[in-house]
């Protein structure tokens, strides 16, 4: 919620510390401040009101109240401090046909003068990103952001003599909202209608209708303040794709008991800035909040928080909140204030005590080690599989669980190419083989050898699978791929003590690893843990690589590492890999064949560019009297 510092400060007679200090107080004692920015001579705080506190904290009053507890500065004023009485009533008809309306009150104000709002009100609303419309609408909006209670002002001319009827909509009924959008309803939606003509006036808890709104020539208004069921408000809003400042407050369960405070505050403000007088009002109470008392012991408080607070320290915090409570034998019995339906169990109160006291006072305690009661068999054997395959030159990849087309369809997919869950790993593996194949030289490997261990999904459930794939450089494929997999599976079977029967096809095999592991004996210890790699990742170039081979005869005494370093030096920084791929000896000479891979991080290299580098390499090789073959 966007919160104006100046607005908050009205609750403290201007005695707040500066905005940054306020933001820090919130961060460590209440909730995150997502943003803080200067707006005119005000500071706007974007307060991340937590969902469990949203029934009272989506308001400047709620946020000021919490701040007063955190900073231990009393509120200079509090609209909720005293019960409001709306005075004598009541001639406006209100018919409630649904329990979705928990409370409904309407007040008729005659003789108002619609016009621009006073500067302070305009500024207050504009600072928090609201548009000033006119004094009546602004008053209603202001009170919503001030107290958290939405309200709506109708032009009395459009209501008729018989008042309101709150009812379910009929399928297909329509209303054009204040936003100019036409909404079409279902029977499950709740609307406010004219009692005489049944014509829909507004969508309950969500939006007023365009037709019945305030216009420049309005003189008599009917202010409606109500409370709506959170669930039905949320469902209608979701279906209509309509979420408003009002509906988010109802969804979060602002209590029906706020209604009279809301009405009285809106009326006062309208009379102050638009004149007029209240001629009648009516109220229907459908649901009352039943608040229980919360019992919590000092022992429990300390046990949960890891603190050693005293009864006095806890009492002091409860008093800062201003809550009614009884302390007896280190047991606290707390009566929450009417707006705080978030305080239900002991832990709710413990959190309040903990955050106000300050979590920074909690001492870290490392739990005493206990023996490991269970070894995760799947993880254990998956590690055996990995180590076995890695020793055979296979690298492990992770691929997406999503596929463009498969068996299990996602109802709300992110994108059409991610519309299904994978039913096997091998299709992903095949794509990964193809994608990696052009990079074999760059990676300094003869062929792409990869595997994945992951979950797949089909109509009978999910399974843990292992897929292994090999792709040799084009041309050799048929000859070499299958034997590599066969050999790797043979070795894997020996490691696991359980032969793997599956045969590879086209250089890929997929094995139900979950089923396989189920057949293996249980284990009592993890294998010796290998420290993970401690490298720092280097981004790779997305430009293509160019490969050049060089073969040479050198005398038997020449050291291989020396040759490599000479090649690297002369090839320069564009040469990203030098791999020895052949070596043999003859007549006291050794033949070395190296593959040099060239790649730039910022451009596509040309053949000419690489050829000229290679000329230098040949040159330096010849200078050493090594014979280029």
């Amino acid at each position, binding site marked *: 919620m966007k919160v104006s510092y100046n607005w908050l400060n009205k609750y403290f007679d201007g005695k707040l510390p500066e905005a940054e200090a306020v933001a820090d107080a919130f961060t*460590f004692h209440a*909730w*995150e401040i997502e943003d803080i920015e200067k707006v005119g001579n005000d500071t706007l705080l974007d307060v991340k009101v*937590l*969902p469990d506190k*949203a029934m009272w904290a989506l308001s400047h009053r709620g946020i000021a109240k919490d701040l007063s507890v955190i900073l231990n500065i009393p509120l200079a004023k509090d609209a909720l401090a005293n019960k409001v009485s709306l005075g004598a009533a009541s001639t406006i008809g209100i018919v409630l046909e649904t329990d979705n309306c928990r409370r409904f009150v309407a007040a008729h104000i005659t003789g108002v003068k619609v016009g621009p709002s006073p500067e302070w009100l305009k500024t207050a609303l504009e600072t928090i990103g609201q548009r000033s419309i006119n004094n009546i609408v602004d008053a209603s909006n202001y009170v919503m952001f001030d107290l958290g209670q939405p309200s709506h002002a109708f032009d009395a001319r459009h209501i008729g003599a018989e008042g309101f009827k709150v009812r379910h909509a009929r399928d297909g009924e329509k209303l054009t909202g204040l936003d100019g959008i036409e909404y079409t309803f279902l029977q499950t939606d709740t609307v406010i209608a004219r009692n005489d003509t049944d014509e829909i006036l507004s969508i309950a808890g969500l939006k007023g209708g365009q037709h019945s709104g305030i216009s420049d020539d309005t003189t008599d208004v009917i202010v409606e303040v109500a409370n709506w069921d959170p669930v039905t408000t*949320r469902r209608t809003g979701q279906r209509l794709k309509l979420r408003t400042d009002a509906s988010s407050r109802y*969804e*979060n369960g602002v209590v029906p008991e706020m209604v009279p405070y809301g009405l009285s505050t809106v009326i006062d403000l309208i009379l102050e800035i638009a004149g007029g007088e209240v001629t009648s009002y009516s109220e229907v109470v459908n649901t009352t909040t039943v608040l229980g008392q919360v019992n919590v012991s000092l022992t429990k408080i300390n*046990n*949960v*928080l*890891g603190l050693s607070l005293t009864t006095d320290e806890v009492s002091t915090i409860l008093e800062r909140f201003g809550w009614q409570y009884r302390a007896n034998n280190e047991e606290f019995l707390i009566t929450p204030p009417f707006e705080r339906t978030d305080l239900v*169990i002991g*832990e*709710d109160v413990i959190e309040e005590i*903990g*955050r106000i006291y300050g*979590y*920074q006072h909690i001492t*870290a*305690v*490392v*739990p005493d*080690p206990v*023996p*490991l*009661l*269970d070894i*995760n068999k799947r993880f254990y054997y998956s590690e055996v599989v990995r180590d076995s395959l890695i*020793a*055979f*030159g296979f*690298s492990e*990849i*992770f*691929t*997406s*669980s*999503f596929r463009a087309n498969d068996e*299990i*369809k*996602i109802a*709300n*997919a*992110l994108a059409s190419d991610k519309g299904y*869950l994978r039913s096997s790993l091998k299709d992903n*593996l095949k794509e990964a083989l193809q994608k*990696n194949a052009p*990079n074999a030289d760059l990676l300094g490997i*003869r062929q792409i050898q990869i595997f994945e261990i992951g*979950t797949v999904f089909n109509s009978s*459930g999910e399974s843990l699978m292992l897929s292994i794939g090999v792709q040799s450089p084009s041309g050799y494929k048929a000859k070499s791929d299958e034997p590599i997999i066969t*050999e790797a599976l043979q070795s894997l079977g020996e490691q696991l003590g359980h032969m793997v029967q599956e045969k590879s096809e086209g250089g890929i095999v997929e094995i139900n690893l979950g089923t396989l592991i189920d057949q293996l004996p249980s284990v009592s210890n*993890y294998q010796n*843990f*290998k420290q*993970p790699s401690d490298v720092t*990742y280097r*981004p790779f170039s997305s430009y293509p690589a160019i490969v050049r081979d060089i073969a040479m005869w050198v005398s038997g005494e020449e050291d291989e590492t020396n040759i490599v370093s000479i090649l690297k030096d002369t090839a320069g920084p564009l040469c990203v890999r030098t791999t020895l791929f052949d070596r043999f000896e003859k007549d006291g000479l050794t033949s070395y064949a190296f593959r040099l891979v060239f790649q730039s991080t910022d451009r596509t290299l040309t053949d000419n560019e690489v050829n000229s580098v290679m000329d230098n390499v040949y040159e330096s090789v010849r200078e050493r009297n090594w014979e280029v073959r």
Partner: protein
Amino acid sequence: MNLKPGHKHPLTQIMGEVNSIFAELGFVFADGPELEEIRYNFDLLNVPKDHPSRDMQDTFYIEGKPDNVLRTHTSPVQVRYMENHQPPIRIIVPGKVFRNEATDATHEAQFYQLEGLMVDKNVSLGHLKGTLEFFFSRFFGGKTEIRLRPSFFPFVEPGVEVDMRLTGDDAPEKLRGRWIEIMGAGMVHPNVLKNAGIDPTIYQGFAFGMGMDRLAMMKYGVDDVRLFYTGDLRVVNQF
């Protein structure tokens, strides 16, 4: 066959290290399904239907399976494990989770989460702090401070955000000395204990959940989470 050994995926390496550090304190590696029942993913974790707190996680639903979701967190395993075990309980749950949100360098629709749960008679936020300090000091090197800030997750009460700060010469330079927001945590909500068949008047515990991809990114300086899932050996073979 390639003569040189292949490479283990960085996330698996992290998972192995995480498991080995927590195993020292007796935390058992638990797991559960990725295609999860809604009641485990939400209801039993104190996230009621039609409550705004369900909006906190964007969920993938499955066509024709109205009772299932792709799990949005590893927390369902808390309930699954507690249903079959009485305290004392110490588990970690490393596993894949799914969120229906647009992907960018720091967000993937699929990623790995690390859940932790400890339930016993006197487990407090102090033990949460201690466990995490122990873990991060071992994982990153150096000395770790843990800072808790108030927050909300439906399955814990109190709920906290956890920040960490690494100090000391052993700490990686790129992470040293600054506070880093690292995870959500809290004391297991009594409703969750009750739902899983554990008496909340006798037992209490802490739970935490963090992104393993994030741990890997911090440890290895990887700047884009999506790189872990491309199957590209130009990434994997660096590790």
